[in-house]
Structures are given as C-alpha cells and as structure tokens.
C-alpha cells in the first residue's frame, strides 16, 4: 500500500509561487489568527539534496454537525418539492456550502460560490433532454426510436466533454483563502480518459477497468490548479490493479463461503423434512436460505465495492501534489471506510432515508479528519493566476458552457 508518511519532495521543486517567492519563508505571521479551528500541528525538518526543508503538516478538521445538517437537508427537501424542483439549485448550493464551510485547513475553511441561476440553467437543459427521452421511450410516436437513439448517442459522444465542463465548474466554484481552484485539463485528455479508456474497459472484459479509473483520476488531479500551483498526480497504474485484485480475491473467497452456507441450509432443510408435509417445510427452509444468501451477496458486493472506492480514494489522495510544494496524505483505513459506507446504507434504508444527513456527516468527518496537508511553504504564499485571466467575454462564454451534472 501507499506510504502515508513519507517526507516531501525529491522530484519537482520548481517554484510555483511566482512573484510571491521572495516573501518566503515567513514565520512571523501566525496562520488562522482570526479563525477558530485547526492550526498547524507538526513541523519536521527534512534533508533533501543538502538543503534543509521544513515540512509542515496541517490536519484537516471537519466541524459539521449531523443534527444541524439534518435541518438544512429536510428544509431543502421541503422547499424543493413545494417549488416543484425550482429550489433545487439553492438546495444544492446550501448543502455544498455547509460541507465546504465546515472543512478547515490551517484556520481557514472552504467556500462554494456557484451561481444558482447557472445551476438552474444546467438542470433545465438536462431536464429537457430527459423529458424528451422519457416521452420517446414511452410513446411509440412516429420515428420515436430514432429520437431515443439520437439522444443516447449524443450523450455518449458528449460525455467526456460534459465531465470536463463539470470539473471546470466544480473547480471554479471552490474557493479557499480567497483564491479559487481551476481545472485546466484539456479536451483531448478528457476524451482519452473518459471516452477511449471507458471503451477499452468495456471491451476488455473489465481487464482495462483499473487502467481507465487510473486515467480518470490522473486527468482530474493533473488538471487541477490552485492559483498558479498546478496539480500533479504521482500515482501509478499498478496500485489500481493491486486494489482491483484484492477486491476480486475477497469477492471470490466470500462467494465460496456463501455458496457453502446456502448449500448447508438447503441440505439441513431437506434432512429434517421426513414429515409427510415436508414439501412446505423444505420450501420454507429454501426460502430462508435464498433470502439469506441474497442479503449476504448484497452485503458482500457492497463491502467489496466500498472497499475499492475507499482504497482508490486513499491512493489518489496520497498521490496528490500541488505546485511541487504541497502534498496530501490520507491515513484512513479503507476497511473502516467501507464499513462506514455499508452501515450508512443500512441505516438509511432502515430509517427510510431520514438518517441520510447523519450518514453524510459521519462519512465526511471520518475521511477528512484522516487527511493531512503537508507543505514546505506557508499556506498563505499561493498566488492567484492573474496572467492567464480570461477576457470577460471568454469568462462569460465558459461559464455558459460549464454545466454541473453532479459529479
């Protein structure tokens, strides 16, 4: 597995800070003096090529509260329904703002600054397509099958573009310390990682899937920028295959155990059923066995899927680098996270969805509080990218095309 506690860089040391560079190092300013939560914890000195570098580790803290979020969530739901979906963009923004606003690094939180009208426009476009699609699939009007096919093909063709637009939207609307993130991944890279890679994964019988997932994560991280600091993904595809193999091994082992258990239940039910009316006993036993096996399989596939998600997330987080001066580290256990996710599903199901806010806060808190930001510069030394600022027209055009599909 990935090394969660390695010293910072040895490869990329290009200074991303541009004209702010001469200001560093600057121990005088205490970060987060005006804010409440989260201050730097540990400072370590590392020798890299004869130069001493101070590696400062900042923990991430999450101050969200399940009961508080429950009220926001339920009011969001009520207003969305009463306005027949019209409030949904505002609901989305409040949800995001709550989670961003309670995520702290070095005394400062994040902010989500999406324009609700832009979100609404995106939703309306998607809703229009969906309505046409639904009508075309349900009403056999003349040539309706061509309409269905055209929408499906169109979606497949523009999917990578949509992903890229969504990433741009998400990055542009995320603000930390007064600077917004940006996403600079190219269209070609989007079609490679979300078009070609998915096709390869589909036609290679799953063999290409870890590679596709790797390409997608790399596209996401490499395209990211915070001010002038560009993201860099240090992971390699081997990790992804290792995780997939682990998940596969667990699935096979669990499958064997369940098959044995199911056989056992069937066998026992048959063995004790000597009574003349054994048929009904047998079918009861078989029913219980079948239901148990089904639930078991459901649980198993859930655990395996969540493990894969968690392990990949951890691997990705451990390989994120920003501008050669910041690295992330994730020390959460994929198994613990898989357990949290699966038990969250169960809780949501049992509570008819009412525990959804609790589940979201629980998972977010666990993940974020096991993430560390390690930097060899002070976090207040990043600059906004003023050189590459788009013209107002270009900005407006790209904002018009940036659609958030909820990725």
């Amino acid at each position, binding site marked *: 597995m990935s090394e969660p506690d390695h010293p910072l860089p040895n490869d990329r040391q290009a200074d991303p800070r541009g004209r702010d560079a001469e200001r560093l190092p600057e121990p005088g300013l205490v970060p987060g003096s*005006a804010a409440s939560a989260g201050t730097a914890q540990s400072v370590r000195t590392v020798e890299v090529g004869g130069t001493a570098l101070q590696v400062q580790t900042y923990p991430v803290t999450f101050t969200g509260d399940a009961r508080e979020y429950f*009220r926001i969530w339920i009011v969001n739901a009520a207003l*969305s*329904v009463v306005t027949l979906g019209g409030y949904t963009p505002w609901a989305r923004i*409040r949800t995001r703002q709550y989670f961003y606003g309670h995520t702290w690094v070095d005394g400062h939180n994040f902010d989500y600054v999406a324009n609700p009208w832009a979100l609404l426009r995106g939703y309306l476009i998607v809703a229009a397509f969906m309505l046409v699609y*639904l009508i075309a699939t*349900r009403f056999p009007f003349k040539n309706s099958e061509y309409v269905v096919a055209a929408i499906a093909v169109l979606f497949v063709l523009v999917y990578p573009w949509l992903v890229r637009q969504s990433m741009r939207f998400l990055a542009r609307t995320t603000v930390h310390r007064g600077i917004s993130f940006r996403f600079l991944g190219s269209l070609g890279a989007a079609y490679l990682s979300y078009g070609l890679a998915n096709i390869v994964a589909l036609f290679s019988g799953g063999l290409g899937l870890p590679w596709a997932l790797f390409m997608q994560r790399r596209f996401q991280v490499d395209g990211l920028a915070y001010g002038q600091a560009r993201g860099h993904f240090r992971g390699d595809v081997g990790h992804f295959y290792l995780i997939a193999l682990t998940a596969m091994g667990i699935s096979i082992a669990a499958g064997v155990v369940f098959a044995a258990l199911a056989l056992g239940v069937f066998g026992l039910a048959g063995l004790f059923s000597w009574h003349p009316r054994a048929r009904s006993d047998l079918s009861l036993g078989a029913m219980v066995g079948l239901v148990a096996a089904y639930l078991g399989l459901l649980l198993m596939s859930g655990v395996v899927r969540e493990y894969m998600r968690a392990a990949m997330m951890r691997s990705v987080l451990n390989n994120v680098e920003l501008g050669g001066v910041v690295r992330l580290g994730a020390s959460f256990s994929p198994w613990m996270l898989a357990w949290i996710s699966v038990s969250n599903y169960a809780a949501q199901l049992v509570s008819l969805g009412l525990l959804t806010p609790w589940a979201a806060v629980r998972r977010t808190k666990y993940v974020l509080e096991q993430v560390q930001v390690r930097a060899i510069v002070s976090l*207040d030394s990043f600059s*906004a990218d003023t050189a590459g600022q788009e013209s107002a027209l270009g900005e407006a055009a790209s904002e018009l095309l940036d659609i958030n599909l909820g990725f």
Partner: protein
Amino acid sequence: MTQHQPDPTETLILRGVYFDGQSSRDREAELQIRGEQASLKIMSGEPLPQRQESWPQRVLVIEPPLTRVRRVIRLPGGGRFETQDDAGVSLLESRTHRNWGLGRVRRIEASWGLTLGAVITLGLFVWGFLSFGLPALARSAAAATPRSVLASFDQAAIKTLDNGSFMGPTHLGKARQAQLQAEFATIGKWAGGNYPYRLLLRNGKPATSDGAGFAIGANAFALPNGTVVMTDQLVALSRNDRELMGVLAHETGHVTHRHALASVYQGLGLTLLGTAITGDLVSAGTFAAAVPTALLTNGYSRQAETQADESAAAYMLGQYHTTKPLRDLLARLELDDKNASEGDVKADVRVKDMLQTHPGTRQRLDHLRALEQAARK
C-alpha cells in the same frame, strides 16, 4: 462581538480576515460600515498596496447565511472579507434589506419547531399532489392526447403481443367467434366515446413451436384505442355470455376513462418528482426509489380497476339488472376453480392488498354487489 444598537446610523464594526484575491495570504482586518460608506482597515501584516479601502456599502456582496458557517462579504476587485461575527453581518443584512429570502430559510433551518413545520408541509404537499394533483394532471393529459397517438399505441402493442410468445390464434369455431363479436358490438355502442372498438379472440398459450414463452392464460385486457383482447381460456371458464360481456364492459371502461394513458403520465410524473426531490437522475432509478413508485403505481391501478368495475356494473345493470354473472366469473378466476362461487372468496390481508395492481377480489365482489343493491332501491 458587535454591539447592537437599534440606531441604524450607528457605525458597524466587523472583525475578521481579509483576502485580496491575489494571494492566499490572510490579513486580520476590520470592516467598518458607517452610513452608506464601508471601509476596510488592515490590522496586521503590511498595509494594502495602493488599493482602494473604501466603497459605498451597497457594492459589497454579502453571501447568504448558513448556520454556523463563517460569513463572507465579497468586496469589489476580488477581495473577500470573512468573519465569524454572524450577528454583525445579520444586522447589516437587515439594515440594508439583503438576503431576505435565504435569511428566512436560515431561520427555519435553525429551529427544530420550524423544521418540523417544514416537514409537515412537505408531507401534506406530497400527499395532496400524489392523491389529487398527479391523477388529475394525468387524467387531463390523457384526455388531451390525440387519437393518432392512441392508435399507434394499439398497433405497437398488438405487434408485440402477436409475435407468438404470449398467445396464439383462437381455437374457437367461426360461429362462436361471430356470436361473441356481435355481442361485443353492442357493448361498443353502449360505451361510446367514438373509439374504433375491436375484439381480438386469442388462445392464451404461446404459439411457439416448443411452447416457450409467457402464457397469459384466462385473461382479457384493453389497449388504449379500443382494442380488446380476450382469451379462449377465459371463454372456457365462463358459464354464459353474460359473464363474458361483464368482463368486456369492464375493459371498455378502461378505454373510455383512458386509464392506460393516464398511468403512463402518472409514471412520468412520479419519475420527474423523484428526480426533483433527490436532485439527480441516477438515484431516482434505484431500489429505494422504485419501491414507493411501485406502491403508488399500484394504488393508481387499483383506483382504475374500481372505476372500470363501475362501468361494467352500469352496463350489466342496464342490460341484465344484476352484476352476478361478473361476480361469478371473478370468483372462479380468483380461486382457479371451475366450481367455485362468490361465497368461497376470502378477504385479503390489507398489507397484501397494497402490493397488488387490482383491489382484493373480495372487495371487488362486495363493491359489485353493493352497486346492484343500490340500483334496486
């Protein structure tokens, strides 16, 4: 914390952090609002290099409030002022009448009582919409749908059903067929609505060479534009043609009320509503969403069946002055027993009832009998 004087001209001082939008540097700052003027004072670090520190207060953008999240005021030129002084910012908002709507939302979110009120409103709204709004909308949409759409529905459905894996050609003799067709023609005239009524007699067993497929058995059903299908098996189960005519009148009831179309629209409405609540397309199709959708759809379907039964009863009471023939056939169908009679049918458990597309047979029998008794009075 800010001192709150009622005097609106009082200077408002907010303490917080300032980011200039050019770098990630945080500067301790004070935002002072004095009348119509807002000015920024940097408390630590180097002073602002040649930047305007004073603006009319109305050009400041106050981000909407959210419980316990640091307040943000966006300044002209890309600067941001962030503060924990929620009370101060709220005072500024109320003084300058900003964020009125989302401020109200925040107040609801902050209180359990108001949240509960929101939940009750939500419940009432959903209940009202699902029991009255959506069926009414679906009914009007179905009524407004042009005949050509109905006709293409029938064509497409018959093409699928006649592919051999559901049913085959009827084994009834020519004379018997003609007799049933003639009797159905009377019902068609009675039902009205100017639909091209058509009775298709079919064998309810798959016509594939190996018998594979889905046997529909003893059954009858109507397509939206007046095509009614009845199987040989149902004919065989009947003791007289009055029973069959009861069934066919029931089916024409589905046609004249446009139940099939209404159910399509209701399904569409439920999908859209689910998407609006959950906010995305994917989760609307998941298991958790599918179960309530199926329950609701079954509920609409049971209402439609009751309505069709009432049509059948109206026809039978007019023609035969009794609904007994239909009740007898229903009982035989229910118990799958050629000798069963009405009294043999037991009442269903209510929970089981919810899972079915038709009302419980006992309930239907009682309803049909009640209609007959009401007509006799």
